[in-house]
């Protein structure tokens, strides 16, 4: 097991390298170097010494690989992600809380997806071709087809129109700026249900189908018949063997659901105005605040990669055969 984990972590290194190069490329993409845009945006003139200092700091006169090296080594050794020009603050000050909230939302959604999808998937497989099964299948398909942001808009409209309240945000107005406390956590939890449902719909729909298909494969196997012939009760039979086997591919499904969640939360957060990384990234891209944007893309990607790693390890733990491959 330890060897397996070690191998997975070694595999992680090239992935992280590629991700960091992509994030750096995003920083470099807008035409012209960002100092030019900084100077054009600044209200008062920036004196030459300051420009030179920035030029030196980001290595703008040096070749592109040196710039990359300066950027990445600053992140690794000092946790220095560069400065946000729009906020006039170091990027590292802006992102951690939002990254944490993104993580919280994603994990809650993941839990929601599992709790909802597994029982429904089991039901749908056991009661194959009944009205309930068809209903679940249809709802699942529709859940897959509705884009997150559209669902968010419709739910917001319904809440506004029929309940007269404007939903959105992760905190009540009183708590937005407040320091962390128990009340703030409770307030967060009371606002979390809407984004969790919106984000979880597509994943739930997908997982129900995976669970149903897996379980159907298992149910037709001979050992199920054998166990039934020996007089095992239906419920015990179901949960003791086929469900457990059917759960395996479900764990590996987390590996692709997690990136999808983080990805989907970007847009949903913009619509619902949540204080996660999505809106910050969106605003930074519009303002061409590239160090902020690049750092966000880097960190969100790393977050997803770690999520994928965790699910891989989990899978190897549940199904030890995987370690041998």
């Amino acid at each position, binding site marked *: 097991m330890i060897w397996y984990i070690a191998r997975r972590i070694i595999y992680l290194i090239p992935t992280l390298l590629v991700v960091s190069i992509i994030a750096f490329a995003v920083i470099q993409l807008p035409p012209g170097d960002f100092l030019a845009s900084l100077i054009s945006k600044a209200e008062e003139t920036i004196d030459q010494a300051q420009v030179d200092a920035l030029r030196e700091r980001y290595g703008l006169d040096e070749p592109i690989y040196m710039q990359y090296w300066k950027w990445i080594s600053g992140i690794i050794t000092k946790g220095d992600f560069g400065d946000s020009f729009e906020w006039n603050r170091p990027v590292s000050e802006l992102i951690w809380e939002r990254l944490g909230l993104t993580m919280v939302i994603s994990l809650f959604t993941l839990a929601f997806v599992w709790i909802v999808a597994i029982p429904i998937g089991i039901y749908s497989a056991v009661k194959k071709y009944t009205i309930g099964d068809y209903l679940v299948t249809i709802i699942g*398909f529709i859940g897959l087809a509705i884009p997150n942001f559209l669902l968010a808009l419709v739910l917001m409209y319904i809440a506004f129109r029929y309940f007269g309240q404007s939903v959105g945000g992760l905190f009540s107005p009183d708590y937005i700026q407040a320091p962390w406390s128990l009340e703030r956590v409770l307030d967060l939890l009371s606002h979390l249900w809407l984004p969790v449902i919106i984000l979880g719909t597509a994943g739930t729909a997908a997982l129900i189908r995976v669970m149903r298909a897996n379980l159907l494969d298992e149910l037709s196997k001979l050992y199920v018949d054998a166990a039934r012939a020996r007089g095992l009760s239906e419920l015990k039979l179901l949960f003791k063997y086929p469900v457990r086997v059917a759960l395996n591919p479900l764990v590996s499904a987390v590996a692709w659901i997690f990136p999808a969640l*983080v990805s989907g939360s970007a*847009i949903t957060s913009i619509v619902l105005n949540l204080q996660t990384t999505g809106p910050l990234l969106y605003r930074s891209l519009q303002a061409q605040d590239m160090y902020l944007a690049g750092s966000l893309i880097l960190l969100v990607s790393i977050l997803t990669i770690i999520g994928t790693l965790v699910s891989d390890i989990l899978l190897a733990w549940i199904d030890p055969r995987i370690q041998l491959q």
Partner: protein
Amino acid sequence: MTSASTPSRKDDPANLTSEIQSETRIVVANQWQLIWWKFRKHRLAMFAGLVTLLLYAVALFAEFIAPYAPGTYSAAHTFLPPQTIHLFQNTADGWRFYPHVYGHKVQVDPESFKRTYVVDEATAYPIGLFVRGEEYQLWGLFTLDLHLVGAVQHGDPVHLIGADRLGRDVLSRTIYGTRVSMSVGLVGVGLSLLLGVILGGISGYYGGPIDNLIQRTIEILRSLPTIPLWMGLSAAIPLTWPPVRVYFAITVLLSLIGWTTLAREVRGRFLSLKTEDFVIAARLDGLRELPIILRHMVPSMTSHIIASVTLAIPGMILAETALSFLGIGLRPPVVSWGVLLQEAQNVRSIATAPWLLFPGLAVVASVLALNFLGDGLRDAADPYQT
């Protein structure tokens, strides 16, 4: 695949011959006929296929189907609500068939100056099929003025799904949006297919270190959160680019990540086909690699590839819609569903005009149709399996 009809009485010679006939029909049928027969049994997929065809027909004949041009605006009808179609009219000598919509009167709130529309039953605008309206150029070739639906009298304000903030017809704009939204999926998938087939083919056919390299690349790409990445990349598209170039840049971006699924599918097929007897036989016959791949392996996996391609299109459509919705994908004056949904970006605008979400229905319908169609195709792709 068994014969469709099992005779009730085996000894009836007429039944027996028909059974033999249907069995020989299956034995001699080629792969595509078998796929078609199997697909035809899947009712939902058939229906989805029809809907998909319809959507592409709408995209093709948008000018003819839409009552108005996408840019036609009228300041007098900003945020006009959808008009209900009334099929019959009550006149002095009884009910008569007279499809029409009622006009609207504007009421201005004396305090807040808010404009509200009140249905005015005194004015009825007749509507009909195949009416003469605005002139347009179909595919830039023919100048016509025939529209599938619209006001019988050219110039009557008929907005069946309402109008937007500039008084533009939402229905017409959604119909025009079909063109861009549905084709982004096709073009993007075309590019992904090219990358996926080449890389997946190399990966599956040669195996070894090349396979390992390509597989790791795919794993890396798949572990990335696509939307933040797309946001970052598409935000870098210069604002000065013409719409057509932006359109292609977006499809290239979408396919840069989209090819991985197809590559996996192709690789899996190659791996399983490589050891099939007919491929080994071809190799023993001294055929070179390229002919083996093109003449023997590719035909037997075409049906699977078509199914995967169909299933990949909805993802592209959703991605384009999401990006354009945020304003970092396609931009006006291009009309796509995502661009249209931009008008409905916050609760206030949806509360004023919920009908602006109508393009969203089109998105859901097209994604559902393509998903069902792809599912049916995937089931039918392997007709020798029961």
